[in-house]
């Protein structure tokens, strides 16, 4: 039997990469704002306490962490404080923040765990408003695009509790590919959106060319949300119009208010993943690696394609600057036109100020600066498309080029603002707090189908869809029992035109 060749990364290769990175940095190929000592931090609008102190900050890291680690030392020095930063994966945030809230040791500034209703954080008294700490907050808020700050989302009782510096107009399942491997397979994703058949064929050819050294496609399969993200977004591209966000938005078709997990588009997306496996195009071992591990293997030449987000751009730019890759939109089912993707109104990466924090003046001063055009330009120059700055003018002035600029253009073209039930009725937040994703979740069902532990795509997705319907019905029922004025009709938006943004005027029409 022919022995498979293995990809070998020698120490010499690693050294070469490190030297190349060093050379590029010294040549100034990376924006100069990446380096400390170059932020022009303005004086505070009003005197800050002179008592100093230590400000603790936790968020989901990635490129945010890269930026904060440059800015924080400078900012801390300019204000006479220290800043302790923890940039952790969401999985860790989801564990640490609830425990810290429970025992009263949560960071001064933090992100809420995924899916947690902000209304609960406010009503429970975990957070305090930023209004007292951001000077001229009304003027400051006025500089943000409309729809970023909304009652029930980040504003409560007339005060701003959550601050957003970044837009949520992005997807986490772009086609990122090795230019070399894709070209050798005879495909150019830049020529137009690839179809499922083309993806499958390209993956087969890359795997064949790899001859055991590399494979067509890779995914961080033990990070279960990756399966759901791919199927959800691919389903949307295929025409399953639905919302994004937590359990009470995701997978719901706002035209009829029903989950569409069992739709043809979702099934086709799941089938594509299973076909990539049955074709032998999937990287061996995807089930025992998480998304960052899978991402790290791409520049090492282990696979030709991965469906991930624009956060890869910054990481690869830093870790493998010589590696040539491309970014393209998600594939479309054969014979179909790509349909829009939807985001809810509001920003992303919302920062909350702990109710116990005594560092509010400093946190407010820093957030205020980061919301200014200059702060947003700094952000965009470092973070790029990974977490796009929320101010479009600042993004334009940041002078982004290459994959970052391409990704932002792609998102602008593909993504629309869809309806958000919580903007329509803030009591939907109570439902969110009551809701529980049923076991097994869609993410786990897809994982189970992939591993072969579950059989029958259609039957499994239908069962899953029914579980989700029942879970939402139950959460609505419990919320109503607690006095919430909410029904399943709050998820039905009959005036939703799936080809245009759903703005304030549409809500007024309801």
């Amino acid at each position, binding site marked *: *039997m022919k*022995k*498979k060749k*293995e*990809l*070998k990364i020698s120490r010499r290769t690693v050294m070469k990469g490190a030297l190349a990175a060093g050379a590029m940095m010294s040549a100034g190929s990376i924006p100069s704002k990446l380096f400390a000592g170059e932020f022009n931090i303005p004086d505070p609008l009003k005197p800050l306490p002179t008592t100093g102190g230590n400000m603790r900050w936790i968020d989901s890291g990635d490129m945010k962490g890269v930026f904060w680690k440059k800015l924080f030392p400078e900012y801390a020095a300019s204000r006479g404080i220290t800043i302790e930063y923890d940039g952790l994966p*969401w*999985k860790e945030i*989801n*564990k640490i923040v*609830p*425990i810290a*809230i*429970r025992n009263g040791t949560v960071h001064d500034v933090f992100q809420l*765990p*995924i*899916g*947690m209703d902000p209304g*609960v954080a406010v009503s*429970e008294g975990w957070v305090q408003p930023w209004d007292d700490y951001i000077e001229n907050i009304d003027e400051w808020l006025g500089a943000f695009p409309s729809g970023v700050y909304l009652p029930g989302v980040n504003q409560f009782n007339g005060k701003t509790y959550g601050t957003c510096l970044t837009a949520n107009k992005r997807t986490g399942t772009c086609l990122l590919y090795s230019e070399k491997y894709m070209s050798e397979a005879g495909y150019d994703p830049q020529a137009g959106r690839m179809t499922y058949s083309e993806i499958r064929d390209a993956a087969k050819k890359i795997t064949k060319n790899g001859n055991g050294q590399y494979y067509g496609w890779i995914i961080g*399969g*033990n*990070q*279960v*949300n990756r399966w759901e993200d791919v199927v959800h977004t691919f389903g949307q591209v295929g025409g399953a119009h639905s919302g994004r966000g*937590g*359990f009470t938005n995701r997978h719901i078709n706002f035209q009829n208010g029903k989950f569409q997990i069992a739709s043809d588009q979702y099934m086709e997306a799941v089938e594509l993943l299973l076909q990539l496996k049955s074709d032998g195009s999937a*990287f*061996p*071992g*995807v*089930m*025992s*690696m998480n998304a960052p591990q899978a991402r790290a*293997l791409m520049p090492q030449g*282990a696979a030709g394609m991965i469906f991930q987000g624009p956060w890869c751009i910054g990481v690869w730019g830093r870790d493998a600057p010589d590696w040539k890759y491309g970014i393209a939109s998600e594939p479309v089912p054969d014979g179909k036109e790509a349909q829009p993707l939807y985001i809810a109104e509001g920003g992303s990466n919302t920062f909350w100020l702990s109710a116990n924090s005594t560092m509010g003046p400093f946190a407010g001063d820093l957030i205020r600066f980061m919301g200014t055009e200059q702060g947003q330009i700094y952000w965009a120059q470092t973070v790029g498309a990974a977490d796009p700055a929320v101010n479009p003018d600042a993004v334009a002035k940041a002078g982004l080029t290459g994959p970052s600029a391409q990704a932002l253009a792609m998102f602008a073209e593909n993504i629309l603002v869809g309806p958000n039930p919580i903007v329509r009725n803030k009591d939907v937040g109570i439902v969110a*707090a*009551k*809701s*529980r*994703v049923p*076991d*097994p*979740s869609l*993410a*786990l069902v897809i*994982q*189970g189908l992939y*591993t*072969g*532990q*579950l059989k029958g795509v259609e039957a499994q997705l239908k069962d899953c869809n029914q579980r989700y319907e029942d879970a939402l019905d139950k959460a609505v029922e419990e919320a109503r029992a607690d006095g919430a004025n909410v029904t399943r009709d709050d998820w039905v938006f009959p005036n939703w035109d799936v080809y245009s943004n759903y703005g304030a005027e549409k809500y007024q029409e309801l």
Partner: protein
Amino acid sequence: MHKKPLSKQIYDARWCYLFVLPCSILTGMFVIYPIGMSWYFSLLDWSGFTKEAKFIGLQNYYEAVNDEFFWDAFIRSFIFMFGTVPVKIVLGFIIAVFLNNQVLKLAPFFRTVIFMPVVTAIAIIGIVMTFVFSPFNGPANKFLMSTNLTSAPIDFLGNPDTVLPTVMGVYVWKWLGITMMYWLAALQTVPQDVYDAAKIDGAEGYRLWIHIILPIVLPFAIVIILVEAVGALNVFPLIETMTAGGPFFSSEVMEIYIFRTAFVTDSGTMPRLGYACAAGVFWGVAVLFITVLQGLWMRRTRRI
């Protein structure tokens, strides 16, 4: 004789009680109180960190016993125990017998080597093992392929059929040293004159071990089995770091199940501390039941 009143007895033994007090307070704070509170929380519909907590009686227990994933995890925990404890006991005994031999000059070296994984942080071992068993350039697969034992890499931790045996193997390797130490301690209680007398009587080889040594160390075996069994039911850090219970629940044991329901999941909904406590209490009672059974078995064996 007139018996002293209780208050007088306590007063007379006041120094004893005083010395017991710190330990009692600490036990109360860190053992009794948490156990009591987990019983109480198990009766609540509570996320664990909101003010809202509704008393729902035994509903969490009802839900748990009707949840197939609960029972799958429950059974998997026992599969883990029955799959690892006998292997550890037998292997540990064989190694201890060899290393108990005074003639073997390198015995201390081998003891140290076998004991080394015991003192290594379990989370570190878990993470390192994910690389060791990686199907892409992992040393385990490299070895198997270079020796032509397999033609394609095996996804040890990503395949539902291999994940649990792999984790069990790592667990045995990690803790084998401590089992060996227990056995060594037991073997060293056998007096030298027993060996000498056996030899004079012509008992050698397996007969010496089966008929002379084993009956002497049997009571120790019961204790070792008890300790090992309870240890094998507490494998949270190893499994969390190696597989987090996946793929698709294949390695989800009870502790992972409890952890998953007690905290916000990847799916992004509120945690259920009340429910997790109910599952934990149920599990705790099951482990206690096994411990009591083993205790009874130990008592009976001692009588024999």
